[in-house]
């Protein structure tokens, strides 16, 4: 969580400074507890984690190298996307980290297919695949079709709905009319859970349970975390449409601070240890950014400019 927060704060300040980051910066601030809890409960090499734009914390916890984020944001030619795609659109599909496309909902069926394939090959074992989605993303047809398909196939799919009350500027009441998004689970015949998405321990517990159910063959599991995005949709947005009353409510509390308070209270960490954690995260982030900054940008003259794996079939220019 801390590393993700520190990294994202740094990316945001690079964005504001201008120059190094072209395109947007999208933060997961306020959503780290929910995201990290999922990432921690999955294991890389076995499971699949299709994070979305606010899953920096979960991706790091799952095992995505921090350099993947910095390289993709800064467009390094050495990053997994080689400057072809940017910021949050990164991944390593062969390592259980599908690279999201922007169209919301589209990754759900992709994760289902990854699980299907493993099952068909007889090597699914007790792996699960997690697909993140926001409150807004649940309105897409792709989400519906993907989850329904996974339910029919009884695939070990975890749907993690981060209900941060807004889709960009659009509040829940313009997005859906059910009392709670978890009410959808029954309609798909999947098991559903609600959790306070700011509460790290509660999130860890609910994901642990849901994942163990999926591993045990009980089909898709839908976990809805209630939380608030502590910032704009992207760094270009000041989120002035979120009323102060919400921002200053219990709901608007910072999950990282809550986690730290909880750790201190329970004696799991001291103030010094937490400061050290922050400092080491800061160093890691600085190192990653320093390294990335020295790396080459993609060179249009060296680009292959072909979209097919089969080079013999590349259509002639013009």
């Amino acid at each position, binding site marked *: 969580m801390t590393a993700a927060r520190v990294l994202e704060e740094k990316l945001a300040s690079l964005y504001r400074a201008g120059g190094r980051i072209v395109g947007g910066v999208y933060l997961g601030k306020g959503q780290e507890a929910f995201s990290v809890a999922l990432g921690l409960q999955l294991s890389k090499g076995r499971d699949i984690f299709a994070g979305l734009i606010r899953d920096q914390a979960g991706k790091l916890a799952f095992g995505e190298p921090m350099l993947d984020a910095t390289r993709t944001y800064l*467009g390094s030619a050495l990053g997994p996307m080689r*400057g072809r795609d940017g910021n949050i659109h990164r991944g390593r599909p062969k390592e259980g980290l599908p690279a999201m496309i922007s169209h919301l909902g589209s990754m759900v069926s992709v994760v289902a297919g990854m699980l299907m394939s493993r099952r068909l090959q007889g090597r699914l074992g007790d792996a699960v695949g997690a697909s993140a989605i926001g409150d807004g993303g649940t309105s897409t047809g792709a989400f519906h079709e993907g989850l329904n398909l996974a339910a029919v196939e009884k695939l070990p799919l975890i749907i993690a709905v981060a209900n941060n009350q807004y889709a960009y*500027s*659009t509040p829940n009441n313009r997005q859906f009319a059910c009392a709670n998004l978890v009410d959808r689970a029954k309609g798909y015949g999947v098991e559903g859970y609600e959790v306070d998405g700011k509460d790290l321990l509660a999130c860890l517990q609910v994901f642990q349970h849901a994942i163990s159910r999926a591993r045990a063959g009980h089909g898709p599991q839908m976990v809805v975390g209630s939380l608030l995005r502590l910032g704009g949709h992207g760094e270009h947005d000041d989120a002035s449409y979120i009323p102060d009353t919400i921002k200053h409510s219990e709901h608007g509390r910072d999950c990282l601070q809550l986690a730290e308070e909880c750790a201190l209270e329970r004696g799991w960490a001291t103030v010094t240890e937490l400061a050290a954690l922050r400092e080491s995260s800061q160093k890691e982030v600085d190192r990653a950014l320093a390294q990335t900054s020295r790396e080459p940008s993609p060179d249009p003259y060296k680009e292959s400019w072909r979209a097919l794996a089969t080079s013999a079939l590349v259509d002639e220019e013009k």
Partner: protein
Amino acid sequence: MSLTYLEAIREAQYEALRRDPRVFIYGQDIGEFGGAFKATKRLSAEFPGRVLDSPISEDAMVGMAIGAAVEGSRPIVEMQFADFSSVGFNQIVNQAATLYWRTNVPCPIVIRLPSGGTPGSGPFHSQSMESIYAHYPGLVILTPATVEDAYHLLLDAVELEDPVIFCEHKFLYYHLKADALPTSTLPIGKARIARPGRHATVVAYSAMVHESIRAAEELQQDGYQIEVVDMRSVKPIDTGTILASVARTGRLLCVGESFPWGGVTAEVISRVVADGFHLLDAPPQRLNSKDTPIPYHPNLWRAHRPTAASIVAELRKLLKF
């Protein structure tokens, strides 16, 4: 008063809402927030209940607009980015485009597509989809290149009885300014000579009109006079104006920002050679983006789409022929 291309789109929507009580606007984050690009800024306050936030449901957004049109409304749908209209594709090409032909009931909807590349936007926030929609019967596809056209073509689109795909270019949103809006303009379906010339014709639309004009300016220093035709509408195509230009110059380069296979440039060239083969002194050429998705990194992006420099290079080859 000076206004940008984006402000012109906002003003046209203001004017459409003001003039015609049947008009309403539907899209993601377009209400109080004013839209991802602020194309509907303040409109929800000025026209309460007529500028409505939608769920993230492009298929249903278009379907809803079609139903509303049947009942006499004049909906404008804003896609947050043209790229996301792929999710509403089925409703656009199979429901909106076929309604009049099948049932005799017109389908007056306007779908606004914030289109085209800007640096750092990557494969899913940069697309130009005019060629996809133009392939289908039953749609009108507009591609304004100027502040004036952004305003007048949008207003005309709202008045049209047919479904219009309005491809507005994001790169022009802030860059392009005009001092004032003219009170009248060419009708939908007419192309415009953006710059007269006699050595070669460049047919372009949307942002590529400006790259072409810059290319023409550069070549002028070498004594070439390049005529630039701004298509304005890619369906229908004003073949007459294009042919007349080719008749003057004998040489044709067609420039588009979308992918190279098929599309606007191929359609223009096929028409010109079918009807104006004898007018050509050299093989007509195309310049499009490269045949890969649109890259994120500005270095790659600039090499992926046509620019003044690559248009100049093409024109030099064409002029030498």
